[in-house]
C-alpha cells in the first residue's frame, strides 16, 4: 500500500502544471506544461553492475544520501546506458527489507539464528580461526624427490581451514582475501571461477 501511495504521489507530480500568464489567469491560453523530473537536485554517481562480467555502467541518483533512482550510465562505453533486467532492478537491493540487520550466529544444534554484534562476530571468527589453525597445522611434508629419496620439507599449512572466495566482490577485496588465506596458512583457496 505504501508503494501505491508513493506511485500516486509520483503520478501527480507528473501532472500538468498550469502556469498563469503574466496578465491574467487565462488557463486555456497559458497552458504551458512543465514536467518536473524526480532526479532534480540529485547527485549522479557512476557504479558497475554486479551481475555478469559485462561490466555495464550504472548511474545512481542520490539525494540527501538516499538513492532516488538507478539506471544505466549513458557515458559508460560498454553499455551506453542500456541495462538488462537484472541490472535495471538493482535499486531494489538498496533498501530491501530482507537484508539482514546485524551479523547472525547459529550455535551448534540451534534451530534459529541469534543476532550478534560485529565485534562479537569478528572475535568469534578470529578465535576459531586461530584455534583451528593451531589444531590442524602441518609444518612439514614428506616428499619423494625425482631421484627417489624421501625428504622432509616445509609445508606451513593450516590444513583445516578452507576459503571459498568470490567473483562477486571487488578486486581489492578479492586480493585481500587471497592474501589473508595464504598469510594465515591455507593454500586451500578456491572460488566459483571453477564452476
Amino acid at each position, binding site marked *: 500500500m505504501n508503494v*501505491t501511495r*508513493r506511485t500516486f504521489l509520483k503520478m501527480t507530480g507528473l501532472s500538468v502544471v498550469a502556469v498563469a500568464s503574466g496578465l491574467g489567469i487565462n488557463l486555456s491560453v497559458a497552458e504551458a506544461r512543465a514536467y518536473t523530473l524526480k532526479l532534480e537536485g540529485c547527485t549522479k554517481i557512476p557504479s558497475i553492475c554486479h551481475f555478469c562480467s559485462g561490466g555495464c555502467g550504472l548511474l545512481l541518483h542520490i539525494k540527501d544520501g538516499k538513492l532516488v533512482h538507478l*539506471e*544505466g550510465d549513458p557515458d559508460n562505453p560498454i553499455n551506453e546506458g542500456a541495462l538488462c533486467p537484472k541490472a535495471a532492478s538493482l535499486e531494489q537491493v538498496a533498501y530491501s527489507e530482507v537484508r539482514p540487520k546485524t551479523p547472525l550466529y547459529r550455535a551448534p544444534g540451534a534451530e534459529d539464528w541469534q543476532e550478534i554484534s560485529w565485534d562479537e562476530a569478528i572475535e568469534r571468527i578470529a578465535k576459531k580461526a586461530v584455534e583451528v589453525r593451531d589444531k590442524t597445522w602441518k609444518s612439514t611434508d614428506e616428499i619423494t624427490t625425482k631421484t627417489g629419496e624421501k625428504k622432509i620439507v616445509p609445508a606451513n599449512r593450516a590444513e583445516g581451514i578452507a576459503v571459498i572466495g568470490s567473483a562477486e566482490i571487488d578486486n581489492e577485496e578479492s586480493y585481500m582475501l587471497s592474501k589473508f588465506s595464504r598469510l594465515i596458512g591455507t593454500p586451500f583457496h578456491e572460488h566459483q571461477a571453477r564452476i
Partner: protein
Amino acid sequence: MTKRMVFVDTSLCTGCKACSVACKAWNDLPAEKNQLITSYQAQASTTHNTWTYISMHEKYENGKMEWLMFKHQCYHCAEPSCMKACPAEAIYQTDSGYTIIDQNKCIGCGYCVANCPWGVPKTDPELKKTFKCTGCIDRVENGLLPACVATCQPGALHFGEPEEMKQIAEVRLAEVKKDFPKAQLYGDKAMGGTTYLYLLKEEPAFYGLPENPTTSASLVVWKDWVQPYGIWLIPIALGASAVSFVTTRIINSMSKSKGGDIHG
C-alpha cells in the same frame, strides 16, 4: 517539443524484459505476484502497476523454430480513443505526440479502459485512478530517453523524430522481409498513426493484436452522435413542454372566453 516516435523493432527484441523492469524502476511501480503463463512469459497484460511487458510467441513450422517477442505498452495514438472516451477531460495529448492521463483529473471511471482497442489503461481499484504508460514524458521533456528505450540492450527500441524512425523502420522491414515474408509495420495506420511504431515478423493476429484497430463504432456513436446531438432531445422536450405550457393556457383562455372549460 516537436513530434517524437518510438520504433519497436520486435525482430531484435530478445525478450529480456528489461524494459518492463526499467519502467517500474523509473515510475516507482511495485512488483506483482505472478506465475509463468506460457514460454518464459509471466506478465499477462498491462495492469495499473505494469505499464509495459513482453509477450512471447512460439511457432514451429517446417522444421524452423521461431520465438517472437512483442512489447506491449500504450501506443500513444494520434487519435486516442481513451482521450475521446474520457468524461473527465483527464487525458490530453502533448505536442510530442504522447497521450497522458492527468492524475489530478482522472476519476478512475474506466471509460478509457473499455475503449482502448488494445486494452492498455488499467484502473487501480484502491486509488480509483487509471494508469498507463506515460511515454516517460517527464524524461523526454527533460532531454532523457524513455526508460524502456534507454535500457534496451539489443537495440530493439529507438527514439527520435518520426521521419527518422520511419526511415529506420523501412530499412529494417526490407531486411527482415527477406526471411519473414509476412513482416510488416504496425501502428502507422492504426488510430490515426501511433507514436509507437512496430516492426512485426508475422501478421498482427499471430501476436493476438487487432489487425487494423480503429476507433470503435460504439465510441463514434456515443461521442460523435449521441453526446453532441442526441442530448439536444432533452432541451427539445423541455422546450416543447414550455411551449405547450404557454399555448395550452392561451388556447384555454381563448376557449374559456368562447365558452367554458372542457377539462379540469
